[in-house]
């Protein structure tokens, strides 16, 4: 998955899972303030991303996540780790 594909997948997930307006899903959108997601939604988003990436997400991976771009970075990092296991 290249960067654009990751973004599109993430966007589709957010739209479908949280009934969000696709136009609002831009990299700079803040999950809480702009998209109205709360901590419970974040948990369900992580569970969904685990399904998509096949990777277990560690709590620390999500500590600094605030925006859609942050989420995208975490997914790409997980996918990269999966592609080249240490």
């Amino acid at each position, binding site marked *: 998955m290249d960067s654009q594909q990751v973004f599109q997948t993430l966007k589709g997930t957010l739209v479908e899972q949280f009934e969000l307006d696709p136009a609002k899903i831009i990299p700079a959108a803040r999950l809480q303030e702009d998209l*109205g997601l709360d901590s419970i939604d974040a948990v*369900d988003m992580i*569970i969904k991303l685990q*399904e998509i990436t096949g990777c277990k997400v560690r709590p620390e991976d999500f500590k600094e996540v605030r925006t859609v771009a942050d989420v995208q970075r975490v997914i790409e990092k997980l996918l990269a780790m999966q592609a080249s296991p240490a």
Partner: protein
Amino acid sequence: MARRVVVTGMGGLTALGHDWLTIAGNLRARRSGVRHMSEWDNCTELNTRLAAPVASYQLPAHYNRKALRSMGPVAILSVRASELALDDAGLLNDALLKSGQAGIAYGACAGSAEPVVAFGRIATTGRLQGVTSNTYVQMMSHTGAVNISLFFGVTGRIIPSSSACTSGSQAIGFACETIRAGKQTLMIAGGAEELSIGPTAVFDTLFATSTRNAAPQTTPRPFDRDRDGLVVGEGAATLILEDLEHARARGARIYAEVVGFATNADGAHVTQPQTDTMARVMHLALEDAGLEPAAIGYVNAHAAGTTLGDRAESFATQQVFGARLPISSLKSYFGHTLGACGSLEAWLSIEMLRANWFAPNINLDNVDPTCAELDYLTGEGRNLATEYIMSNNFAFGGINTSLIFRRWQGAAA
């Protein structure tokens, strides 16, 4: 002195409609909500194919994603029934709900069935697949009570009353006691049950379900000689219970007064009802209300159409009231709505009290000679003006409840 408790709002979702006028029309037409469930054909071991699902209903737009994420079907039924009841009481969006003076007593046999599958999978596969932030909240037995609190912002006490078939009646009783004791001014009280194959399988395994699969309108048959078991139903009903003084001060419409409640246990057998403790709970409710048996003009029976249950209940009722007592069971119309039946039957009994008309038992063609003699209502029902009525329920594990309601007679009461 204990405070007096009145009913100022009622609402529910049933197999025969979601408001009294519609339901009353169906009762008067002797129409049953039972239908054939071809959906269950894949479960070949199940003997029954009968159920009484709730009639279709639409949720308003404010049941959005965030509101619904913590709700399975049973919680949706609980919340929507409570919204109808609060609206009926003129209390929707009232500041009282968030004041800490309003609480909730609510129950069901269990939470929703679907999330149980995800938890079961953990045990069988060791995987968390399907478990989300809200899986437990949808599954837990107090899902209805908690979701009502979240949805309406209620901040008083929550009393989960999940005791199978007495969930709804215990909710009303415990809510009444809470207001009497001055702990809350208002209580949202009731019970709900979503339709799923599990509870049906429970009774089916015990050979307690009706298998008149080709003739849904002829069953269940409470007190009838040819009854062959119960039919599981779906529904929810909520009563708004309020401190009489508070209700008077705000000029609320009062439907009835809750004057008596009792609950006890058989302490004997998990499924075999015990006549003596059933009679005892009725005596206790009469004592609680300060009434003699002769004051009760009608009893709404639990009677689900099982061989042992109907018989034990008929003898218990006769032991308390004698053979003169007018009695009928609404389960011949709605099936056995389990966690909902206590509040559903309380709601409709109060409406019948107000209408001076009590619905007949349908499918009661020949009273079972092994049941005790009582004045079983048949035919067109009974026009009857009475001051006090009783509603009884009995649950798995030997839990018994008895509620007594008094007609509200306005300012003079």
